[in-house]
Each structure stands twice: as C-alpha cells, then as structure tokens.
C-alpha cells in the first residue's frame, strides 16, 4: 500500500536527532509491548509480514504522531481483535470474558525463549531458476497494490543493476495476507542517485534495495 510508512526520499521531517546514552526502553509499557509482539508473532500466528501491514494500515496521522512502540501497540491490538484472539470488549474490560481458541503454537513459556533469540530463516527451496543474474539491467515495476509490498515507491519505474542473488525467500506480499509463503528469488538491486533523484543528486551516491523477482522486469 502507498502509505506514509514508505518514507524514502520524503522531505521536511527535519534533522536526525540521536539521543545520548539512550535507554533500551523509555517506559516500562514499551518493553511489555515489545515482548507481547514477539510472543504473539512466535506463537499466535501473527507473522512478521502481517504485523508490518497492520502498522502500515494505522491512520496516517496516527502513524506519524505515535512513538515507535505506540505504533506496535495500536497495530497488535488491531490484529488481536481482527484475528478473534481477544475481543475489543475484553481489552476494554481488562479481563478475559470468554474462552478463546488455542494459539497455533500454544502458550509461550520460558522454554520457548531460545526460539526468538535467533532470527528465523526466510530462505526456501526454489521452484524455478532465477530469472536474473548479477550485472543484469532491471526496472522496478510500477506497481501500486493496496496490499502489503516491500517495493518502496522511490524506486518504482527506475532502472538498476542486479548486484547479488540472496536466495529464494518467503514473499511478504502474499505472506502478509495469509496467502502462503510463495517463495521468490531475492536480488540486491543497485540504483544510481541520478536515476532516482535527477541531475541534481549527489553523484557519489548509490542506493540498493533487496527486491523480490516479481518486482522486477528486464530493462534494455
């Protein structure tokens, strides 16, 4: 979806302001949100891509105005209600009011901790050979789905060079919507700054994205 989350190249957000000696969390509730999101991702069937789509789907003014973990909270709350894991009335009451179905992987306990301390693998077996190879000229397709995609707007329609093949990976565009892992080849594609930003761009800049094969077409 063409949401405000897709920020690459936007102007007007101001300076980057690092916080000296920044704590891991700024409030206790932030750490509870982070932990709950990890648990519901690992055991609740709320996969990473669906979580990202839920955050992207927050109202734009709320997305821009909310702190990072506030966005996580608002999105997981939406997902939990939409997935019938808990009802809005139960969250409002602060208590479970009726039994709910078991989670796909059961209760998350201390024994499950090792499962989330290392990132999962998104590599999958390929069903077909890769269409592109390093050195190939490719154009990022001009797609504008209303659904989840990881092709940022700032590269759409632009020509880049395939630099490396990263294997065949779970395809977020379908996985986010319960439509299967649908593995696709993943390429690092490099774009020259002037291709993206015009003649005034810093000529020493190159930008790469990691692009799934369905995002790309052969360029002349």
């Amino acid at each position, binding site marked *: 979806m063409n949401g405000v989350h897709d920020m690459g190249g936007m102007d007007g957000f101001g300076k980057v302001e690092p916080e000296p000696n920044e704590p891991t969390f700024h409030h206790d509730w932030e750490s509870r949100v982070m932990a709950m999101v990890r648990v519901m991702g690992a055991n609740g069937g709320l996969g990473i891509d669906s979580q990202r789509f839920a955050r992207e789907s927050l109202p734009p003014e709320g997305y821009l105005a909310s702190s990072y973990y506030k966005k996580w909270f608002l999105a997981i709350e939406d997902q939990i209600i939409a997935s019938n894991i808990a009802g809005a009335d139960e969250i409002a009451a602060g208590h479970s009011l009726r039994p709910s179905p078991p989670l796909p992987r059961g209760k998350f306990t201390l024994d499950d901790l090792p499962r989330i301390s290392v990132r999962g693998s998104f590599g999958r077996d390929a069903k077909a050979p890769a269409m592109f190879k390093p050195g190939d000229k490719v154009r990022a397709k001009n797609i504008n789905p209303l659904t989840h995609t990881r092709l940022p707007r700032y590269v759409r329609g632009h020509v880049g060079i395939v630099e490396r093949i990263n294997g065949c990976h779970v395809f977020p565009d379908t996985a986010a919507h319960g439509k299967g892992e649908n593995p696709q080849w*993943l390429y690092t594609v490099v774009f020259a700054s002037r291709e993206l930003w015009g003649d005034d761009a*810093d000529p020493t800049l190159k930008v790469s994205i990691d692009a799934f094969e369905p995002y790309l077409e052969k360029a002349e």
Partner: protein
Amino acid sequence: MGLGAGLGYSSLMAHDHDHTHDRHDHDHEHSELSETQLRVRALETVLTEKGYVDPAALDAILEFYETKVGPRNGARVVAKAWTDPAFKHALLDDATAAIGTLGHVGRVGDHLIAVENTPQRHNMVVCTLCSCYPWEMLGLPPVWYKASPYRSRAVKDPRGVLADFGVTLPAATEIRVWDSTAETRFLVLPMRPAGTEGWSEERLADIVTRDSMIGTGLPKVAPKAAP
C-alpha cells in the same frame, strides 16, 4: 523519564498526546502516558488470563534485550575481522556462517550480510519502510533509526544525515546506502583507524561504536589512548 529536551522521541510523544486529545479528553502528557500504560496492561492481562502469555516469559524476553544483546556483539565481530584476515574474508563471504564459528558472540540468524568500508566507499544502512536492523549484532535499534527523519533522508541525502552525526567524508568517497527492504540484514565493517596497530581484539572492540556499524559514525579512538 529519560526524555531529554529537543529529542525526537519526546516531540513524538507530545504529538502522540495531541492526536489522542480529542478522543480521550486528557489535557497533559502524563495522563496520556498513563492511558497507554493502562491499555497495555489490560491487553497483557487478557492474554495472560486466556493462557496465551506467561508474564515470566515476557520478563525474560525484555531482560534478554536489555542485558544480553547489544552493540558489543557486533564490535567483537568487527575487531576479529580487523585482526584476522581469514575471518574477515569469511565474514564478507557469508556473515552468518562466519559469526557462527565465534562461540563468544553466539548464533545469528540467516541472511546477515557484512559490508566493508574502504577509502573509496562508505556504507550506510537504513530501513525506509519500517525498522529492520541486525538485532543480534547491535541490540534493539535506537529511536532515531526508526524515526521519520532518518528513514526519509538516508536514501536521498546521506551526506546531510552524516552531518547530523558530525561526520564528514571526502567529497569523492562513494556512499552506498543499503535499504533493508527484505529479511536480509546488514552490518557495516568500518575501517580500522590508524594508530591502532598491535592492539588486542578486546581493546579494538572498545572503539567500535554502534553507529559505526550502521554507517552513521566512525570508530572512536580516545584522544589520549595509551599504548
């Protein structure tokens, strides 16, 4: 509260408050924060009562991220690469596999890519779409990495972003920005500073800052470093 004046985070929270003002009729930031805190607690209670979540497991998760993982992991990898050419070669070839051979750093997930800074090229990592970041190497990302100014500008004006960090690179240096749009993760291997010849890995790791492994900083050698 740990919210310094003029920080991106505190201004975000203030906006956050404004946004919810008309819905909740609270009139100062403290109430808004309490409101979020109460809603988070309510959700945790519901999930716990339903038997989905064990609060002790939540405690363990946040303790893990507060105390067990952080930039020290990445710094050890960088220091090793600076002192061991075979390891550096392996790291640049397949970072996940190479780091797996270092017992003291621990296991890392698949698809980690190490990118090397050279006199010709400086690398910088961003996630314009969300906040993808090599947690196992660097811990949880800082607020600025996840906030709009960095995500919007890094791919268009990286030299301007570097200036915000007080870093100036030679005009001829190529800047390569890696937008983390998939489940690949990137670790910048900074250049080893001059004057660190003969240093131990441990001592080298001390000068490898988090930002130098994101590409928004350079390793910091203390002015009066004793030999």
